[in-house]
């Protein structure tokens, strides 16, 4: 059940064997899964960690004095420590379990936001945010009377950092931006941007939904104030995400949701709050999911995040080279060196939805099509939708070749 330490240079071919779904067929063809940016697949080690938990150890955590409740609590808290180490948090209590990245961001918007953002305050976002790192701030800004400003995106899909610096001079309270764009693949210079924000007196929330799964992320090196990510994008289960925060900030924040486990004492009319991280974890937590996330972290550690990043860069460079040769195909975003394993593109006048349907039915390739929860970014590029292929540790060049084959098929069907 626990992962054996793997050789650091395990090949993607080898890794694929751990993912049962990768041997299934769709429409009679082997599944080629190129949508890991939306959600990754799961290795046996993760699936079994959870099944085994339910089969042998399940009980509610934290309050039981009997054996299986102690074991369940220990397993869950061990997972928290694993996650803390994975992102190099100083203390595991800085790791708060949520449902997903979206809830992590909303938690900060509700708890820190309502306590700290006043009328006229400025929050700086960027033009490439996922709706999850945009809508919560719109809701906060609307209620608190705060202002939102946006760092624009260049034609190459990079942030316009000169505008960022100008916006910082307006002394924002908070800067919230994505570490890596889920549409363009752009990896933003987080460390520099955070240092600049701090120099201007702003806190920084980093949407790491696409970075933590795909590259080494060190919260202390980044000196980031809040970091948010989802287990389901990093080989882990659905139903659990993480909010990391600097301890003094988390300590000072009021709770988000009220209920069991997050209290110290409860009277009829007043209550006091529990310590971190439980202050922010109201009700029975996602216990099995935390354990599954812990197993995913073990699995990724065994591969090595540097290796994962390297593999994805190689695959991305290869894929960009290959798909660029398809006539009429346009790739959006920066060159391979500045991006993660994501390629958004359009092909002639074929609508991305039609393209995705054709790829699915003709060659078994699963890609995403649409606005990718980033409508403002789409509008920036004058697009209603793009097709998007994305890669992970289990992606091989054969997958890319099948994508290219499917793109040619689409040209044929659309008579282009």
């Amino acid at each position: 059940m626990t992962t054996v330490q793997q050789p650091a240079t395990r090949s993607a071919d080898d890794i694929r064997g751990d993912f049962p779904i990768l041997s299934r067929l769709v429409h009679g063809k082997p599944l080629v899964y190129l949508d890991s940016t939306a959600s990754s697949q799961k290795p046996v080690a993760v699936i079994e960690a959870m099944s085994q938990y339910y089969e042998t150890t399940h009980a509610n955590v934290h309050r039981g004095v009997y054996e299986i409740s102690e074991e369940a609590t220990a397993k869950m808290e061990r997972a928290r420590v694993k996650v803390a180490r994975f992102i190099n948090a100083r203390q595991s209590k800085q790791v708060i379990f949520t449902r997903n990245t979206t809830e992590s961001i909303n938690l900060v918007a509700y708890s820190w936001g309502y306590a700290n953002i006043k009328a006229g305050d400025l929050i700086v976002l960027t033009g490439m945010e996922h709706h999850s790192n945009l809508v919560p701030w719109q809701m906060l800004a609307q209620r608190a009377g705060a202002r939102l400003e946006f760092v624009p995106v260049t034609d190459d899909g990079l942030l316009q950092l000169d505008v960022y610096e100008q916006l910082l001079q307006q002394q924002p309270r908070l800067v919230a931006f994505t570490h890596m764009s889920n549409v363009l693949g752009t990896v933003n210079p987080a460390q520099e941007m955070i240092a600049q924000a701090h120099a201007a007196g702003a806190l920084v929330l980093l949407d790491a939904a696409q970075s933590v799964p795909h590259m080494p992320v060190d919260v202390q090196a980044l000196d980031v104030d809040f970091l948010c990510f989802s287990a389901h994008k990093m080989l882990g289960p659905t139903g659990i995400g993480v909010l990391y925060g600097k301890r003094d900030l988390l300590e000072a924040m009021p709770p988000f949701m009220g209920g069991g486990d997050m209290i110290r004492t409860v009277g009829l009319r007043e209550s006091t709050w529990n310590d971190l991280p439980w202050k922010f974890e109201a009700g029975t937590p996602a216990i099995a999911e935390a354990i599954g996330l812990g197993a995913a972290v073990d699995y990724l550690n065994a591969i090595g995040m540097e290796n994962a990043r390297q593999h994805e860069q190689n695959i991305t460079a290869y894929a960009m080279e290959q798909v660029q040769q398809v006539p009429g195909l346009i790739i959006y975003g920066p060159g391979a060196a500045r991006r993660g394993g994501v390629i958004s593109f359009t092909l002639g006048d074929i609508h991305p939805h039609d393209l995705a349907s054709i790829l699915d039915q003709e060659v078994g390739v699963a890609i995403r099509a649409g606005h990718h929860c980033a409508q403002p970014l789409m509008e920036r590029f004058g697009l209603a939708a793009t097709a998007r292929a994305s890669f992970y540790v289990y992606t091989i060049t054969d997958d890319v070749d099948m994508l290219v084959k499917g793109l040619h098929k689409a040209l044929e069907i659309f008579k282009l």
Partner: protein
Amino acid sequence: MSMDYREYILDHYRNPRNYGTLAHPNAHAEDSNPLCGDQLAIDLLIEEDLVKEVRFQGRGCAISQAAASMLSEMIEGKSVEEVVQLGKDDVLDSLGIPISPARTKCAFLSLRVLHRSLALAGLEKPIDNDEEDQ
């Protein structure tokens, strides 16, 4: 070869019939598909209980735009009573290809907007799109 993209579908996609707007429509509605972003607006000119003129505008996939184009042809000149009766089967018949579950929203977007335009004009009672339910 895929069954999904017959030539007439591509033709309607690339050369949509009745594309545009009306100067003085007396029925209008628009909607989008929140998950894929497809958009559609329909203008109708109804006189003496007949659909005299129809125009639609939209952007989206071949399925949604061809369906809209075909639907516009289908209703032109028809009585309101007949148009009110139009349902999903009529759309599927005119598309003439199998539509997978994820694409049904594309196929039926124009039908939904059409019925809404009649409802807003008081010519049909508003529908509650809960067909999936018990």
